[in-house]
């Protein structure tokens, strides 16, 4: 019988924080109480928070097709080190995950690695080309619940409407990467005062907001559950807030980097601050922080986007978009936003699991469920230097962050503890 006892932690529950021990037996939470004993392994939390494992509904593991950037093994290790027990991987691989067998491949590879539940999102259109619908039925049957052409918007409103109608009927979630290429074309950074000084072509806020506004009208028409990926502008937050007030089934995510950094970072023209959506104005950073606090934005999602060092070691405008984020996510959120422990776990674990339909994750801990949990010390100060990810395209290297993952337990097994991934 395999046992783990978690002692001296502050257990975060829906109702608040309590001092309780947790005993895990054969993968499940067996007992929650005071002064529990075990014959097995003990994890002394030293006063850290204990809550449901983090869930990231937006990551890129690059497998199949671009394994030199990351693969499901290295991505899973990064997830475990970041305190995650489940991740939803985007379908913009090569080939794109647009049919059932590809989704099953990703699930199987995730199980083989065994560090985190790897859940595929499916493409909305074949090859993510925006021309005809992907095999939505096959994907659904394989277990896919989130559908997106992430990396691009589904631009054709007629095609998107049909996808929404189909997915509304079966209960799937349409997640949109909001980007109108006619407005963002050639842009490399947020269009504003900094891009004007640098002479760089800009990515205007309207390029994101125009797609969100159109999609919300289509969501109203079709009744589909609609999710806005990586919200970054004050205007987009406002649109989501109004749609929620109206009662639409709308959710939204924000990345850790959009909660901490603004477009002033691009002054140094370092490709590690190049991503889509771009870092926005300080006023937008304030707006997404406020949106996360008041719940207009439901979840944090990293958009973990690994690229090889040589791909980023080029001039800013020539660099690919994207930065990694799994291993710094909780720390960056904890450093940037004033959230109580319950709200913190709500945004990092409970709500993302709910959006992705993951029943064994993001549950407030109680006896009976699978033990998917994280021990997080919100007061630990550190500076990221090295990563489990194959990539190191992070703007947080060398930055002072507060909050560190102490241990991650996935399906009752320690996958990360004290700086080491346990394979």
């Amino acid at each position: 019988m395999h046992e783990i006892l978690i002692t001296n932690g502050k257990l975060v529950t829906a109702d608040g924080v309590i001092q309780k021990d947790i005993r895990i037996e054969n993968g499940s939470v067996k007992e929650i109480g005071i002064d529990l004993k075990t014959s097995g392994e003990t994890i002394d939390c030293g006063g850290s928070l204990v809550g449901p494992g983090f869930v990231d509904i937006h990551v890129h593991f690059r497998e199949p097709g671009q394994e030199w950037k990351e693969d499901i093994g290295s991505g899973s290790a990064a997830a475990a080190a970041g305190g995650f027990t489940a991740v939803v991987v985007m379908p913009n691989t090569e080939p794109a995950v647009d049919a059932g067998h590809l989704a099953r491949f990703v699930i199987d590879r995730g199980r083989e690695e065994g560090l985190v539940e790897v859940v595929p999102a499916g493409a909305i259109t074949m090859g993510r080309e925006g021309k005809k619908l992907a095999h939505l039925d096959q994907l659904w049957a394989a277990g896919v619940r989130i559908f997106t052409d992430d990396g691009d918007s589904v631009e054709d409103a007629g095609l998107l409407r049909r996808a929404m109608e189909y997915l509304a009927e079966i209960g799937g979630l349409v997640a949109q990467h909001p980007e109108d290429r006619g407005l963002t074309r050639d842009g490399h950074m947020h269009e504003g005062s900094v891009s004007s000084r640098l002479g760089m072509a800009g990515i205007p806020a309207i390029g994101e907001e125009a797609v969100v506004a159109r999609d919300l009208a289509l969501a109203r028409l079709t009744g589909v559950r609609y999710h806005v990926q990586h919200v970054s502008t004050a205007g987009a937050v406002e649109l989501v807030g109004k749609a929620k007030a109206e009662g639409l089934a709308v959710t939204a995510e924000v990345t850790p980097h959009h909660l901490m950094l603004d477009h002033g970072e691009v002054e140094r023209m370092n490709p590690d601050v190049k991503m889509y959506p771009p870092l926005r104005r300080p006023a937008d950073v304030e707006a997404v922080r406020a949106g996360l606090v008041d719940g207009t934005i439901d979840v944090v999602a990293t958009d973990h986007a690994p690229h090889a060092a040589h791909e980023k070691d080029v001039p800013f405008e020539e660099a690919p978009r994207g930065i990694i984020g799994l291993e710094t996510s909780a720390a960056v959120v904890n450093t940037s936003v004033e959230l109580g422990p319950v709200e913190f776990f709500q945004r990092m674990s409970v709500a993302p699991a709910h959006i992705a339909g993951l029943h064994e994750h993001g549950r407030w801990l109680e006896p009976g469920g699978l033990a998917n949990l994280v021990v997080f010390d919100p007061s630990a100060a550190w500076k990221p230097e090295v990563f489990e990810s194959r990539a190191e395209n992070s703007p947080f290297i060398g930055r002072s962050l507060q909050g560190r993952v102490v241990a991650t337990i996935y399906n009752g097994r320690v996958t990360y503890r004290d700086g080491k991934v346990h394979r």
Partner: protein
Amino acid sequence: MKHFLNTDDVTREDLESLLDLSDEFVEVLARPIPKVPALRGKTVAMLFFEASTRTRLSFERAAKALSADTMSFSPSTSSLSKGESLKDTALTIKAMGADALVVRHQSTGAQWRIADWTGLPVLNAGDGAHQHPTQALLDALTIRQHFGSLDGLRIAIVGDIRHSRVARSDISAFSTLGADLTLVAPSTLLPVDLEGWPVKVAGSIDDALDVDVVYLLRIQAERGGASVFPSLPEYVSRFGMTRERFGRLAENAIVMHPGPMNRGVEIAPEVADHPRARILEQVSNGVAVRMAILFRLLGGEVHDA
């Protein structure tokens, strides 16, 4: 001063001292043998990843007038076309023994990366639409020769400011030197956000003729695309330096242009050829200011061979 990458963070004192040094090289270039041994034994590599005639020739002339050796590189025949990265190209040129790199590149900030990778002094000969600092120096020198100083001068910069590295470098250098600046352009050719820029804005050249200097920018059809204004005649009618407008300038005012000119578009042919158009003086001064900056960056350790 280790590099010369932009005009934003150069102080007034440094700019004026570079201009003073440039004056000395103007004098050198007027000698019967226009050459000094200051950089003998030094090698200056010209890395022009984007096509250029005048800037490249001007830097070569400047380096040679200081007795430096030069190496040059052209992207169409280079290993770049075989897929070599910019970093490897830069490190390769360094390994051949270059002492300084003069770099033009279409990507904003490429010179900053090359400076990091190589550790060599880098002179920015134009990056994207960002900076072209030696152009700003030669423009400031040309204005100073005519007026004695830029302090309090009223300068209008007219045309495609949004896509112009010349404008960005000129604006910070001219304003550091005390000039009063007005930008004149259709809104599609102005930077989107002018927050913090030391400038006024006018929507037509007719509102900006009461100035000491009119600086005309090239209309770059290849950059802004074709849809930034409706037609060339419409541009000329609002922004062109026509003969008639030239006649309304103050008697001592001058007209400048960084070249290459589109005669009949931003500048009428008669204006381009007028003695108060200082376009060829700008070109001549380009050699002197590039000598000054090469000397400043490399001249500290002259070989006595």
